[in-house]
């Protein structure tokens, strides 16, 4: 710590606070189970980005600032921070620095490119409750879109199962690093998520097969029955443990294990839910069974219940532009995220798409511009949180990523221009302090194994 403090200079006040936060241990449920992460950042020389405008992710915009990265962590950030000897200097003058972009809703790897039938691994659409499946077992690390998302500044992403089922399965949080195995991408210690879907998709998929659920009330009956069964399962395990763990334990059940993990607060609920009235019902279900919803995803109508969502401390992951494909998304508006933010809530811009994930910064810019046009007053410092600090919160990793505070993982993007502009390009990306993208260096354009030797790879994507 002492060594770090030496370089702090005129650092803003929160930096000191945050250093302590970075030392904090992970949340409950972060312990590695089966399929543990094998991701270990490579050693990297310390880096100093000098002279850039830095959006810290805490709300601050600091002009002409310096960011120090050392041992994979943010070491210092602020104006007038001295650059010690031995640091690789990166000229940031005229450029912008932000925390690495975090996509709270992605299907990269589970719906990879090319989209062949052999690759459709995102929806186990054979039963309305498939809480037992884990998205990480469908992820194809050779999906070329991981590299494209990296070039868009995305350093962490939540990969979810699809929304065909009431309970789609476990999501997985990945660091966007090249890897042959999915374990090599897993965010160490990140809590798991459970994908739940409201509304049209489950009732269409199963109603269309002549089975439950075929209505929204059928959806809700399906959720409640599952939670009743899961609570029963959890009680059996609690009893066995309270009895000293003697005798045969209850038989493990993968589906109930995941649901019980939610009831224990170890697995975070990521809930696909468009309509305001349905979100309110889901909040009541969570209350009935004693769990929390981490975020509503898509949530085109969240702005209608923004104060409620803020009070309940539930994040809203949404878009600026997508609306109208379904009845439940007909009321989508550009200002959804900024209105959640204005109500004091946790607003997130997510992608759910292999193209949009490459320009979440622009989508946030569109929402910001629309809000300011409508009379709200949203600063860049505030808006960057929609794609950094707030998704980190929804994913349960806000103590490690999402802001540029000393002690945090050094996931950093250097942008060629105002990051909310259509003209901003991610020039450099660091993940855990390791250079993972350099727009000017062809080595970083190395395609995934799938694209190697394929036609038309001679120009940058």
């Amino acid at each position, binding site marked *: 710590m002492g060594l770090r403090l030496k370089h702090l200079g005129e650092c803003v006040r929160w930096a000191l606070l945050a250093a302590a936060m970075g030392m904090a241990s992970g949340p409950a449920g972060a312990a590695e189970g089966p399929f543990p992460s094998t991701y270990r950042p490579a050693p990297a020389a310390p880096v100093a980005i000098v002279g850039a405008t830095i959006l810290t992710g805490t709300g601050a915009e600091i002009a002409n600032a310096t960011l120090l990265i050392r041992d994979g962590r943010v070491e210092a950030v602020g104006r007038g921070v001295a650059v010690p000897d031995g640091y690789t200097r990166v000229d940031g003058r005229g450029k912008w620095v932000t925390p690495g972009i975090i996509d709270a809703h992605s299907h990269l790897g589970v719906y990879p*490119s*090319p*989209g*062949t039938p052999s690759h459709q691994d995102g929806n186990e659409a054979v039963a309305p409750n498939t809480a037992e499946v884990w998205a990480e077992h469908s992820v194809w690390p050779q999906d*070329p*879109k991981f590299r*494209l998302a990296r070039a868009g500044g995305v350093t962490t992403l939540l990969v979810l199962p699809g929304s065909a089922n009431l309970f789609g399965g476990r999501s997985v949080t990945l660091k966007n690093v090249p890897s042959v195995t999915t374990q090599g991408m897993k965010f160490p210690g990140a809590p798991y998520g459970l994908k739940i879907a409201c509304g*049209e998709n489950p009732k269409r998929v199963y109603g269309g097969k002549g089975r439950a659920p075929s209505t929204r009330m059928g959806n809700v009956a399906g959720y409640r029955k599952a939670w009743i069964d899961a609570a029963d399962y959890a009680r059996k395990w609690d009893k066995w443990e309270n009895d000293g763990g003697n005798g045969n334990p209850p038989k493990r059940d993968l589906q109930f294990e995941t649901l019980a993990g939610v009831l224990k607060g170890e697995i975070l609920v990521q809930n696909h839910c468009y309509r305001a009235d349905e979100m309110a019902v889901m909040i009541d279900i969570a209350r009935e069974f004693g769990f929390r919803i981490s975020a509503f995803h898509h949530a085109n109508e969240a*702005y*209608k*219940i*923004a*104060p*409620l969502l803020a009070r309940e401390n539930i994040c809203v992951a949404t878009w600026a*532009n*997508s*609306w*109208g*494909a*379904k*009845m439940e998304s*007909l*009321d*989508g*508006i*550009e*200002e959804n995220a900024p*209105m959640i933010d*204005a*109500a004091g809530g946790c607003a997130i811009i997510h992608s759910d798409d*292999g*193209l949009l994930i*490459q*320009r979440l910064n*622009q989508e946030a*810019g*569109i929402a*910001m*511009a*629309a809000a300011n*046009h*409508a*009379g*709200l007053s949203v600063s860049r410092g505030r808006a960057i949180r929609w794609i950094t600090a707030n998704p980190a919160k929804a994913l349960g990793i806000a103590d490690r990523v999402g802001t540029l505070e000393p002690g945090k993982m050094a996931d950093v993007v250097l942008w060629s221009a*105002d990051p*909310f*502009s*259509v*003209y*901003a*390009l991610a020039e450099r990306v660091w993940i855990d302090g390791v250079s993972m993208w350099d727009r000017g260096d062809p080595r970083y354009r190395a395609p995934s194994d*799938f*694209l190697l030797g*394929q*036609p*038309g*790879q001679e*120009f*940058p*994507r």
Partner: protein
Amino acid sequence: MIRLGVLLLALAATAPAAAETIAITGGRIVTMGPAGEIASGTLLIRDGRIAAVGADVAVPPDATRIDASGKVVTPGLVAAGTALGLIEVRMVAATDDRGTHKRDLSAAFDAGYGLNPDSLLVPVARLGGITRAIATPAYDDAPGRELLFAGQAAAVALAGRPMLMRRGVAMVLEMGEGGAERAGGARGAELVMLRALFAEVRDYKMRRTAYDRGETRDYTLSRADMEALIPVIEGRMPLLVTVNRASDIRDALAMARGEGVKLILEGVAEGWRIAGEIAAANVPVLVTPIENTPASFEALGATLANARRLADAGVLVAIEGNGNHREREMRYNAGNAVANGLDWRAGLAAITINPARIFGLADRVGSLEAGKDGDVVVWDGDPLDTLTRPVAVLIRGERQPMTSRATELRDRYLPAILAPIEGETP
């Protein structure tokens, strides 16, 4: 005499409703026409048409002024490849008029009928600066995939009457993977089938009277479909071919050359690889520059540099939006092409004058020139940037409301957020 009467009626039907003079003053006018860019100029609109544009245009005393000082004035954007006027909610089949699955009506399907000017999508697109669009048919033949042609596209105006601007501006056909599937699963079958169909249409064209008497052989297509294809084989109506793989683009170019068909290429993910050939064939393209993923085996070479490389080779490039409800993103797509090397003016041309030229509408829209329709957008900054919004949109000389159902929803719920009342349940 009769012909003149019809002409007069047609003129009356399309005459702008606005009998008003509007002067847009003080803005940086990017005309996309012969006047080029005017650092600070005036645009005069009279009776729905552009009367004058320039640095020294006198403003008549009766003119309604729109102050564009510090702002950017461009032609209304022209959106190719849209579903505007044809769709309301994609998952509600009754509101989706983009296509038919009736087997004996493919080429004859006409997007110019059944247009809905009251669609909720129209004001949203207008707020993205779009004033004209190509309502484009989409295939509705899955899973059988038996239709070769999706039908005929129509040019539409996003305000004023009638919505239909020009019928039959292109015949829509998918080639490559989708086309192969429609022909039974192989590209070779598709190309053979296409040539056989065109031969039948030529044959039919010479024997119409005999056909009506039942004295010809059986044709594969219905009478309506063959009638619809006559302008195509005569080179009067362009064939709009969606195609992506470099070799498929070559096949499309060769087919068009052999059949004497006028071509517009759409998609063209790998177009950059044979940009010179496309330019040499004088074939325009419609591209979505952000589509850079190898989404299928026919798009392995997709790249953000596609639009730039095509334009550099001399291809006439138009840039599309993101489909259906997301057409307003068209200008950002152009911006992304510029961020990846396309010249800024070429980027703006790709969403104004180029699509107007490609679909034969440049006599009316696409640039700010005296005599053209008064389609104008005033922006609070660079029209291609995410941080910019339009502040005024005029179509056929009429100022459009800067509202949509979405802004009404916003305004309904915003007060509760800005000034929450203690104890009130949201």
